[in-house]
């Protein structure tokens, strides 16, 4: 967002000799823009908007295991709110989302360090932090399951080596959600760092120079210049992180096996519940109703965040 705004403002500020005025140029480009956006929009409509509309519709239907549906009004929602699973799934999802937010300050610190002028092996570090992002979740989960294995995992072996008891990381309720959230942070860190680095490059160097002349050390410069000036980027990442976390599914499905893990019923997320109902026990109307509830919750959380941003986000 900041990057984009920065660009717009620079173009605005500059006057290009011989260039048409802004108004005329805009009117002319509308036509072309439509041509370029058109194909993407068709794809978006077919694969995003239609499924959303159909998903909401399905929440009010009884859907057969192999298609075919009939209108049942609010029945599915009544089931959602009377079955005991929803509360636990919502709490787990909120716990996951809360922990995942901790990735943002970590990403900011790492981004600031990586952005330090004259850092050696900067490219290497960036690649290392970005690697988990481009690794398949299945591979990530498999490796972490091995590391966290209660009997032979490296983590428990190290703990036992220094005289501590091992922990059943993935089959102790709450602990496993925290562990999976930490793996989620690790997986998402690379993207957040890249976005922060882009934002950091938009912070004017002159501010740091002035602060340095006034005797501010690196920590002070970070807290008083970087943190407030980067806050629009931080806000963007917070909103995106919450939206993504509320929809967590893959890591939980892969790391906490629904069939054998005794802690699974106490660790499922909203989307896990959605998947279970829709694809394991063939009740897609019920699943669609869960998705609708989730949609409303995400909208509310995002609205709250937009409301709170006035208190801490600084736009130049």
């Amino acid at each position: 967002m900041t990057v984009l705004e920065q660009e717009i403002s620079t173009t605005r500020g500059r006057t290009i000799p011989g260039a048409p005025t802004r108004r005329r140029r805009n009117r002319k480009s509308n036509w072309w823009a439509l041509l370029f956006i058109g194909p993407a929009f068709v794809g978006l409509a077919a694969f995003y908007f239609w499924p959303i509309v159909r998903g909401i519709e399905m929440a009010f239907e009884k859907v057969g295991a192999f298609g075919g549906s009939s209108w049942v009004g609010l029945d599915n929602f009544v089931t959602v709110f009377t079955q005991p699973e929803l509360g636990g799934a919502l709490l787990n999802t909120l716990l996951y989302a809360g922990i995942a937010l901790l990735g943002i300050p970590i990403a900011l610190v790492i981004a600031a360090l990586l952005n330090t002028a004259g850092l050696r092996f900067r490219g290497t570090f960036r690649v290392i932090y970005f690697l988990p992002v481009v690794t398949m979740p299945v591979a990530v989960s498999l490796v972490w399951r091995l590391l966290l294995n209660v009997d032979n995992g490296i983590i428990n072996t190290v703990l036992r080596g220094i005289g501590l008891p091992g922990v059943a990381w993935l089959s102790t309720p709450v602990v496993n959600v925290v562990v999976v959230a930490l793996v989620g942070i690790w997986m998402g860190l690379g993207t957040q760092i890249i976005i922060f680095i882009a934002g950091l490059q938009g912070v004017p160097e002159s501010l740091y120079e002035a602060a340095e002349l006034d005797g501010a050390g690196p920590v002070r410069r970070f807290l008083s210049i970087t943190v407030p000036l980067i806050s629009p980027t931080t806000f963007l990442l917070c909103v995106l992180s919450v939206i993504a976390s509320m929809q967590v599914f893959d890591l939980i499905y892969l790391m906490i096996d629904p069939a054998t893990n005794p802690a699974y019923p106490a660790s499922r997320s909203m989307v896990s519940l959605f998947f279970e109902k829709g694809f394991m026990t063939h009740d897609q109307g019920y699943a669609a109703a869960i998705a609708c509830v989730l949609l409303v919750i995400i909208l509310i959380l995002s609205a709250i965040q937009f409301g709170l941003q006035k208190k801490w986000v600084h736009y130049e």
Partner: protein
Amino acid sequence: MPHRFVVATSVAAAAAVALSACSASSSAADGGLSKGPVTLNYAIWDQNQQPALKKAADEFTKSNPNVKVDIVVVPAKDYWTKLQTQLTAGAGPDVFWLNGPNFQLYASNNQLAPLDDAVGRDKGNYPKSLVDLYTYNGKLYGAPKDYDTIGVYYNKALFDAAGLAYPKAGWTWEEFQADAKKLSDPAKGVWGTASAPYGQMTFYNTILQAGGHIISSDGKTSGYDSPEALQGINFWNDLIKNGSSPSLQQITDTWPGDTFSSGKMGMFWDGSWAAGTYSKADGLKGHVGVAPLPAGPDSNVSVIHGLANVANAKSKNVGWAEKLAAFLSGKQSAEIQATTGTVIPAYNGTQQDWVKALPDLDAQIFLDEAKVAAPYPISKNTAVWNAFEATQINNIYSGKTTPEQGLQDLAKQMNDALAKE
């Protein structure tokens, strides 16, 4: 990520539609059997069976040169969700594997083509329990492919080290439990056995052996609230409590079959489908045996289950699909699957070849058990109460609830689910 998921599946479905449109030529009028080039997709979930089935499919192509068969292996974990999505989109495989728990759901929703004509007189060559399993409203919808029963695999080296006699036919629950306890050696990381939370391999059998049942024969009520069911579950729960079996948390992290394969477990209840794997396992070479199930208060009966090859009712080449499904379960295919030691074929008279292909094991016990085995418990939407089963059994094994309470709750949940079918 529901949206991304929907996108991914729709893209996959669209691609599948496009692919099948390219490969499948329109069927001719002569009884639906096209003489032009036809490609049939055959979906299975077990990589280990692919080589044998490829051979069988090649035989089919030999006698029907215009028909090519593509075997598609889908990992078991995703098999049902993928299949259901594909079929709903009208882009399912032409022939695919189906199991008991899912059969009635597919048959009652008109996804399967009847195979009475294609299987024809061969119908009498399959065990009756399997023909019944795949019959719905009087029509045969699945050609029985194979069957499996459960046995106790044991590690002879660990028995020798503990100075114990090998288990043999006629042994009892008490003997099994005593052996399991003696074989356990926590210091060496060796377990006596494992209470795997999979009904077919473990507690379905013990509940039946105690004289109970999982589901009533009319498929309307649960048998989990009986004293026999409690006995059958306690059999496994006690093994966890007295340290003969790893805890459920350990089982979650390490599949007990792998622990057994690596030589760290004395005995493990597993299906005949695993015989090939264990006889070839590095940690067990030359010292793995298999014994019939030990007898409980009522019997030592094993659950029998088998897969079927079915034809997609909406296949563009449904006639060929029916023929292929029947062929893959027929005599020639059965012989290939038996001689390669892949699975016990369902076709009567070919099973002995499977036993001969596994000379290191007394695999005959699986065939003997089949003669008196009990059918696998199913209903119209088995998956619903299977999910309750998993939750409650896990609660019991992990000590979160007492076996009495857990089974009462399970029976209630299951009865509610059955009432809605």
